[in-house]
């Protein structure tokens, strides 16, 4: 990615900027809740006993929600309905079940995965430049990034505002999806860049009991 950016720069910023409006936004968010840190949506916090309960927070300074991984069930141990249902609404996600999926890389460790009916939501807390879907069907898929930017006055506000991104997709046998988060990163010279962040790969081969979800 970095090399491609270098090519673009070599080729002329003006031409690239001229097409900035092309192909940038689709899959508009259905709601504006922050998935990782904000207090706009009641959050589920792990209790001391490890069970999950709903709580609310009003401060952006509240640490990002984290689940106690050790108490989470493996995705393979969660019953996933084979019947099709509609996409969960915003409030329904409060009752979602946190699950353990493969997260072998350091950058993926901060992300969380929850299951509700036959849907999964993957949330990652970094300041996000965007999310892309690369493969898989588009029905019942939604992407959300935060902040929405309306209240930002300076570019570095992205590091202090509530931030992160969500991907919602169905878990259905025989279906495969791949998504990638792109994060806003601060470069060595103090400027900003856009980098590939966590890759989300979902596959459910016909012979397997459960889907395979990898966050890398």
């Amino acid at each position, binding site marked *: 990615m970095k090399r491609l950016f270098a090519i*673009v720069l070599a080729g002329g910023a003006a031409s690239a900027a001229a097409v900035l409006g092309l192909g940038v936004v689709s899959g508009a968010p259905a709601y504006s809740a922050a998935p990782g840190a904000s207090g706009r949506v009641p959050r589920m916090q792990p209790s001391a006993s490890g069970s999950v309960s709903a709580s609310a927070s009003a401060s952006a300074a509240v640490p990002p929600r984290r689940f106690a991984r050790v108490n989470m069930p493996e995705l393979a141990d969660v019953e996933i309905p084979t019947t099709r249902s509609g996409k969960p609404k915003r409030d329904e996600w409060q009752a979602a079940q946190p699950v353990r999926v*493969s997260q072998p890389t350091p950058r993926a460790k901060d992300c969380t995965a929850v299951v509700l009916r036959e849907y999964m939501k993957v949330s990652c807390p970094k300041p996000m430049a965007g999310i892309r879907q690369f493969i898989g069907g588009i029905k019942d898929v939604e992407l959300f990034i935060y902040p929405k930017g309306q209240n930002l006055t300076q570019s570095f506000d992205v590091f202090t505002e509530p931030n992160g991104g969500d991907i919602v997709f169905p878990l259905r046998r025989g279906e495969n999806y791949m998504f990638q988060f792109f994060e806003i990163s601060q470069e060595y010279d103090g400027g900003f860049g856009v980098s590939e962040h966590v890759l989300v790969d979902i596959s459910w081969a016909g012979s397997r009991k459960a889907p395979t979800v990898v966050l890398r």
Partner: protein
Amino acid sequence: MLRRSVKMPFNPIAGFATLALLAMGVGCGDENSSTPLAGSAALSGSAAATPPGAPPGDPQAVTGLAREGASLAVSSDGARLYLADEDGAKLHIMGLPLDASAKPTSTDPGGRPAQVAVVGSTVLATVRMTKEGTGALVVYEEKLGDLVEAARIALPRDAWGVATSPDGKRAAVTSAWTAQVSLIDLEQKKLVWSRDVPREPRGVTFSADGSSVYVSHLVGANLTRIDDVGNQPRVVAVELPTAPARSPAAEKLPASLGYALVTNPERDRLYAPRHALGGLGMNQWYGVATVDVLDMTDSKPLAAPRQVNAHKTFIKPFMERFDTRVQISLWSAASDVVTVGASVFTQPRAAVYRPTQGTLLVASEGSGAVVELDASMSDPTLGLVRSYGVSASSSAAVPDGIACGAASGIALAADDGTAYVHCRATDLVVAVLLPQTPGDYDSPPQRYVRFAEPSSNADYAMGRQLFYQANDQYVSGGLGCAGCHPDGRDDGFVWHEVEFAPKEGTQGATFTNFFGSGSLARSMAAFWNSSPIKNGNETGVGYTRQTPIIAGRLKSKGPYGWRAENKTLDSRLLAGFDLHRWNESGNKDSAFPPTRARQLIAFVREGLVSPPLDPAPLNAEETRGKEIFTSEKVGCSTCHVPETDYTNRSVAVFSAFPQRGYFEEKGASYKTPSLLFVGGSAPYFHDGRFATLEDVVFKNGDQMGKTSQLDASEKKALVAFLRRL
């Protein structure tokens, strides 16, 4: 029965361990069946381990003695390494652990061996061409330090890949040039059947129940499956789209370099390392390396195709508040040419599954590395776990500055902690220590063994490395010669030769570059905004240029090039260095490019082995075809002169033929191509318009000789003769 024997290094500890395990009844396979292959205690790779990515409850079919061959294999007791040294025409045996001071012992398998597989105490080696003019599977038995030839089974020419069935009773062998797959009964030690399959079959493996075999090809994206191998074998094409996440949306790309097939221990996933021609990536005019995954339970690809209208969302609402760099980066990330991830290897040549980690180890011929990939992903290429450098330029280089050129084979030690890598271009086997736990790889010392002395011709030795190497500053531009000319043959692909005009108002020069996909050419031109495409419009980009076979076709002084534009092979290579890399192959005043050309010529003329032709005399139909070919009435030999490799090397005007996605080249003339090895180099013409030789002869419209006057039997005879060239 022919018997040859050779002394092998014997590791007493490993040997006794094996004996002890055997005494305890430890083994694989059906304990009630009587396998012909004893001593299967220390099997690696296909043991029924549970990979980390496999969810509990998955089928854990014990796949027993099923093995895929490679250019090297570890003995069942873990004490020895067997190496099929194709270039040296020997089978080498090395003691483990590798010891640089110990000279390997060797045996002559009676021709160039391509692969070796170990099943219990039996060692199988394929031989591409024997002195008798056939391919062969040579069956050896290990006996107290000796390797004894137990059988030699004649097979179709160019026998290459080998695999054994889960019960160890059968072997399947691919014959590359003759495009056949054979089944061998290892109990009876005889050929059961051979079946025709598409071009260049290479990798082969059995299904979990042994009833089917899967085959990969050097040419094309489809795999082949042969069902009911024990009774009525049926050949079925299996679609496996290549690199779907990195393909232009809604396009199915062709693939090449399908040398290997690997399964997981459960045998429900089949991994096909190869090259996606036209796959999108950063600066990757040639495409991307990939590992495509098939669900073996239903023969369906694991990865879905890339969608035209896939979702994406970016922070447009406040982009203007960021600096230009962020804006451009955002545009790049959101553009259709950018795909997920980056290619982490080039020219995959061999692979092995690592059971304790649930990973794949892939030998990257072009980049002098072994990469470890997350096998649980639908595209493992995107899950790089670690990269192990084994080339001279890497910090983990083999000691004493010895370079591992062209990583061509890989085998895993029984303890899963060491990979042995066959470095074909430098005649080395190196040991790569593999960590058992997550974390960074900190370049532990590597061991190696040299199994052959380097050529005394320094140009040849360097040219041999350059042919495979993808990252030489002057030659390769990201893909080695062998990336398009595997074994000196061709990838069956028609490239886009794109001509860029100088930007308006500048003094820039016109230049040409090849692209695997027209989409990428367009996008790159747009990125630059300074190089409009001269030969492109809304319907197609670039002229059609099919990869030619070069092995055995480079004896002539010249001219070379599609239009005979280069008088010598040197000048053709120098032009090629530029054609593949934006006219920027280094300092043109430097002595390096001509030196590189000289070195490459030394290797490609002497070191590439021609496809094995049938040595039998022409039969009656072929003789009749030869008479037609050389007759004045038809006139084939006027241009395709038999005495000069079936070409007169002059140019002739050829009709345009609009090919979808390419720019129509009207009124162009092309050099008469050599017809040597034409029977195995489909598709035909510069644009690949004809899929078969029959189409060439029956449908060429008298553009080549006067074949329309021939009746059907004469045309058939002409085709039969062409297949013998």
